[in-house]
């Protein structure tokens, strides 16, 4: 099994994957915060908005690893072809699972 030490130049790919994960998680937390504020302000007049924002937060959290995976696949495309293929295959299996669940 491949090891990080045998593949130099992976730092940029790892940083990109980590940044994308952090951004998605941060956006989800922002959505939760906005949802709680809306829930407090307009709780009686329009209860659908907080629910929509919470739904968006859930979707962002679940999609975070996938977005990070896309970043990894694109970043690894040049120097780390095997890594890019593995990321693409994982993404493919996930999407097939989603399609079958419909």
């Amino acid at each position: 099994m491949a090891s990080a030490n045998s593949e130099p130049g992976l730092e940029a790919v790892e940083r990109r994957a980590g940044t994308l994960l952090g951004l998605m998680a941060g956006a989800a937390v922002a959505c939760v915060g906005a949802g709680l504020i809306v829930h407090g302000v307009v709780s009686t007049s329009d209860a659908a908005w907080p629910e929509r924002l919470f739904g968006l937060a859930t979707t962002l959290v679940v999609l975070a690893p996938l977005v990070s995976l896309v970043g990894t696949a694109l970043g690894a495309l040049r120097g780390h072809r095997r890594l890019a293929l593995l990321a693409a295959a994982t993404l493919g299996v996930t999407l097939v699972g989603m399609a079958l669940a419909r």
Partner: protein
Amino acid sequence: MNQQLLSLFVIGLAAGGFGALLGVGGGLIIVPALSLLAGLSLHAAIGTSLVCICASSAASASVYLRRGRVELPTAMELQLFSVTGAVIAGLTAGFIPSTPLYFVFAILLAAVAAQMWPASSAGWLERRLALVSARDTVARGASVGAGLLSGLLGVGGGILNTPVLHLVLGLRFERAAATSSYMIGMTAAAGALVYLVRGDIRPGLVTAAMVGTLVGAVPAAMGGHRLSARWLRMAFAALLVFVAFQMIRRGISEL
């Protein structure tokens, strides 16, 4: 509704705290608590737990990746196997009634409790894993197993990933834990998407548990080193045995 949200937040808080203190996924606490205390169906509890695992994994793995602590090539290879397992289990779980799942979950809880119990020598799993010869094959098989557990029961699979990465593939423990933390997020996401598409997840309820998990993990991670690891493991093992008993009772009552 508000009381249910509050109870979900408290459940997430406990799961996040224990998860950070003991290095296990919160699913072992979230799933039984949501189904036994908050009154959610077992499938909804599993889906909710998977989203919480995605959240805690995204928070920790983003830091680990930027600090270069994740063994990315190894994670990518094993992740393909665990995601395949999670998707198969997620799709199958929709056709499995809740009753047998209660018993399977109780068995898992009892096994983890036995593994958690502090002993002078290494646990049964550690001793066996250290003797493995076909290391890559075992690691791939274990990843499929972790994925199946994740998709079927809503746990992260870290309880299987970390020992395999550390003892079978020879990664240093901190690196194995960081790599496992990244892997369980992707595995949980693959399972959670199946539950989400099938409509088993209610976003409002998920959010309360998810925020609780994140809030609970921070103080536990900051102050956990001051607590006795031995007593923590014993308390957690006792809690798991109690929860396993409650899951069996629920399973029997639904027969």
